[in-house]
């Protein structure tokens, strides 16, 4: 029988939660370009703190009209996972260089 120390178990659980959160957020699509916000580089950080999932995302510009839409979509996909805090941050500002390198934009 394999045993894990309690703090190691907690680390494994947190990692699994983070991975699941990222997997779900990957399903949030920017409606203007039809690409996942993760692939666009809009997801900055996902981490656990005091048993709360903290998610930092950005939008392409401070006045982005679809900011609320993206916030709602991210919260929606995480709503049944764990208590979540979503923060929209503008530092560092988004740039096209943050788009995932292996993404072939708009391929069918």
């Amino acid at each position, binding site marked *: 029988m394999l045993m894990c120390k309690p703090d190691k178990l907690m680390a494994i659980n947190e990692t699994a939660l983070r991975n699941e959160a990222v997997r779900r957020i990957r399903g949030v699509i920017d*409606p*203007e*370009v*039809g690409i996942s916000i993760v692939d*666009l580089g809009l997801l900055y950080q996902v981490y656990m703190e005091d048993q709360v999932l903290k998610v930092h995302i950005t*939008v*392409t*510009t*401070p*006045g*982005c*009209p*679809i*900011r*609320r*839409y993206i916030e*709602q979509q991210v919260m929606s996909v995480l709503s049944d996972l764990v208590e979540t805090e979503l*923060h*929209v941050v*503008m530092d560092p*500002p988004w*740039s*096209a260089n943050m*788009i995932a390198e292996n993404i072939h*934009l*708009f391929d*069918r």
Partner: protein
Amino acid sequence: MLRTSNLLFTLLLITAGGSLLLGLYTGLLRMGMTAAADLHLNNGILHGPLMINGFLGTLISLERAAALQKPWTYTAPVCLALAMLLLLAGQPVTGGFFLIAGTVVLVCILGYLFVLQSVTYHAIMVLAGLSLLTGNILYMQGQPVYELVFWWVAFPMLTIFGERLELNRIMRPPIKAVYLFAAMIILWVIMVALLHLDKNLPWYLMSLLLIAMAIWLIRYDVARKTIKSVEWTRYSAICLLSGYGWLILCGIYGLAAGFPVAGPSYDALLHMVFVGFVFSMIFAHAAVIFPALTGIMIPYHTYFYLPFGLLHGFLLVRVIGDLAWIPVLQTIGSYGNVAAILLFIAGILIQIMRDR
């Protein structure tokens, strides 16, 4: 994270929607439809202010306010909405005050965005706000609409240009191309200002620049790629590219016809921009903006190509009627455009209800 109440959002959206419907109604009054006896809408004279300020101004300022989530930014859409209600109630002085106040706050919002991120596309949006302010000041001073209307044209046009430039970063256009686009926009606005002094050379340069800006967009817009996508993304791309096509036609017609004062030329030119371009953009973005402001998704359906086709088809009929001086075609085209917009709205509402 600061949020305004859903009630305020709903009220502002209702006002914007109401302005759109009344704007369409007053547009038909201008085409000769008899006004309902109990609606004192002054033969459609409020058509322009309702569409530009009541609908577009309220909606665009609400979008920015929703993005920034600062309480002071909501003053803009509230003031613009109040302005429309007061103007409709026959209170031009108070209505004018709120119109100017709302526009000033909108310029402040756009200026704040430029301070946050001092980039080309934000500068273009500030120009858009200043253009609206200029047009509204001239309007409240009692200037004839044909003297100021291109300031009103500049507001949605530059707003859209700025947004497309922002989004098109994903395409990594050459920096020189971006600066060229910005230069063309600035020159175009300068020509709008010079129109007050001379209706010839500035007008021809405006028309040429319009064609050039539309070609730039067709060349560099991400819509060239997203047209290969599916559902709303593809639909949006088709709407965008067809809107740019209308700008080119508008520019060509402007070169051929010269500066329009009133009559069919004026009607054709304005509606090529406001219907062919601006409403194409509205159709393109509705599926994104509506959920952003309301939290309610609009499920995609191929039905939406129907109002799209009717919008452009009837606009063509209207413009042919204008160019050939065939009043019945002008009228059919106008009613057809209104029907297309109403069918689009109906489609949104039906899809939302079906989804629930």
